[in-house]
């Protein structure tokens, strides 16, 4: 067995450099590439945010959620409807969308949280479908049916700064993604994250070790849904229109794949998975109708050769150093 603390520490330093490098790359990218690719990278960001949100539920806690797009839809429509009918600024609606999606998750998941594996899976599918179909049917004439809601404002911080072009949106989404990553890494390294992982590993042992399984499962759903709601808000303001077909079951499946292709519970993994899902069709655009075929084949081959994902989460000494802790504090 390899057990060398130095290796881990080296790894940690290497990782920090990598993080900084990637961050710099993301900052300068819009100056190098054209507007089309900036847009592509914006949607990569949206997928990354959604992937991170599903990763809480699926990756950290191991709950099969195949209706995650439903939560995003709640967030997107909250933003769209409140903005277009009452003129509430998008930026205020950002937390509102998160709260409404989270509250929705809490309401619908409470009675079903005890279901196991595949039964939970079909219920989440059903939930996602119920949301999509209901939006499609224009209840009380507020969702605009299959046309959706259009005319959504850009996010603006007062009148000083308005996010109104591709580059600004690019920075906006990746800023949110960046903040989310910091928050989630902190969570991973806390008793909350540990409790989630324990439930994923063995529910009965977790309960018998003193973890309130029901509470932490619900917490994961609510947080995941809240983040998806945030993604919905940004998505709505970028496209200026939301319509039900953006939130299909197929999209939920793609999110599921983002988490598994990257590696369950691994934050870099989610980013890679999101990149694979959002960039792949663009890169293979030349193959036109064959690209999805290739995509499907790639998914199968991926799972045969790397069933644990591209960048599975590694666990070791460096994990426990809180992100912003001074070096001297460790080992006390």
């Amino acid at each position: 067995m390899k057990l060398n603390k130095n290796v881990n520490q080296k790894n940690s330093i290497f990782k920090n450099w990598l993080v900084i490098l990637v961050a710099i790359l993301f900052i300068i990218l819009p100056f190098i590439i054209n507007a089309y690719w900036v847009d592509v990278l914006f949607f990569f960001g949206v997928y990354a945010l959604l992937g991170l949100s599903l990763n809480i539920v699926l990756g950290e806690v191991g709950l099969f959620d195949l209706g995650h797009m439903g939560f995003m839809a709640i967030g997107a429509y909250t933003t769209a409807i409140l903005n277009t009918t009452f003129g509430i600024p998008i930026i205020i609606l950002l937390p509102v969308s998160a709260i409404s999606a989270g509250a929705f998750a809490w309401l619908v998941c409470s009675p079903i949280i005890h279901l196991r594996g595949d039964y939970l899976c079909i219920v989440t599918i059903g939930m996602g479908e119920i949301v999509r179909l209901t939006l499609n049917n224009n209840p009380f004439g507020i969702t605009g049916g299959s046309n959706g809601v259009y005319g959504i404002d850009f996010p603006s911080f007062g009148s000083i700064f308005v996010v109104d072009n591709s580059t600004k949106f690019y920075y906006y989404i990746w800023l949110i993604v960046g903040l989310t990553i910091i928050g989630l890494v902190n969570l991973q390294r806390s008793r909350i994250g540990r409790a989630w992982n324990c439930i994923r590993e063995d529910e009965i042992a977790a309960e018998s070790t003193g973890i309130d399984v029901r509470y932490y499962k619900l917490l994961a759903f609510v947080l995941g849904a809240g983040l998806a709601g945030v993604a919905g808000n940004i998505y709505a303001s970028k496209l200026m229109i939301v319509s039900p077909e953006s939130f299909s079951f197929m999209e939920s499946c793609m999110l599921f794949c983002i988490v598994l292709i990257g590696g369950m519970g691994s934050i870099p993994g989610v980013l890679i998975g999101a990149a694979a899902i959002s960039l792949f069709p663009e890169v293979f655009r030349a193959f036109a109708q064959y690209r999805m075929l290739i995509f499907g084949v790639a998914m199968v081959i991926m799972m045969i050769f790397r069933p644990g994902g591209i960048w599975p989460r590694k666990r070791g000494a460096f994990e426990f150093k809180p992100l912003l802790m001074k070096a001297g504090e460790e080992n006390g």
Partner: protein
Amino acid sequence: MKIILEQLLNGLTIGSFYALIALGYSMVYGVMKLINFAHGDLFALGSYLGFTLLVSGSAYATVTFGIWGGMIAAMLIAAIGIGIAGTLIERIAYRPIYPAGRLPAVVSALGASIVIQNGIMVIWGPRPQAYSSQVVPSVILNIGGIKITLMQIVVLIISFILMGLLFYIIQKTTFGAAIRACALDRDTAALMGINIETIIFFIFALGPALGGMAGVMVGMYYRKISFTMGWNYGLKAFTATILGGIGNIPGAMIGGLLLGILEMLGSVYISTAYKDVFVFIILILVLIFRPTGLLGEKIAEKV
């Protein structure tokens, strides 16, 4: 009253499609504990195979065997073709992944589903295809004031024969008992001298074969097929499977038929637009009170 009966018949027809597809999900799940997400697309592939035999490609089957004979021939060929496709998918996409656990298999299954769906699109084109009324006779019968199409009767008869046959094989023969034994406890089944690989081959051939036949019938019944139909039907059939209790053969049949009827009643008494919402709400309510479906076994984990 007549409307209710007609709707019940419609619901039963759709329900028997769901049931036939659901059987495939349930059989595979029962033995492998794997949700075969590609199953719905295999059903769609069956539909397109039938379309080629009956309509395009100079309607070979219809020309050779006449309308009814052609239909039977198309269903048999679809059954064999999709059965082979099913076992191929097991070999290529699932078998190498079994040791890695269940979740990677979900991704692989989704991948296989995308491959089939887009394969259909590449071969037959992205636009929906239509059956002409020459291929499928559109006769409406009036029995005691209740309108019923000839096709509906045909679908109901064939579906019930198929379901009856499967029920007989699974519930009444020793081979069927072997399949159920494998689903309960693979190790002990092996101690009986059952070759597990034969069983796996069988379920991955038979389930999709039934789905393929359902595909041909759906094509003829609705006269319109599209390459995305696998997802819609697959989702409904999977819902039916869970409703009945996944892994349970009679459960899948009852779940399918019930789902079809609920859907129709929902569209009559609630609204057509909300019928699917109604169906999913019923499903969720059932699962809240019976966490393993209507006929599902209670799972008690040994501690």
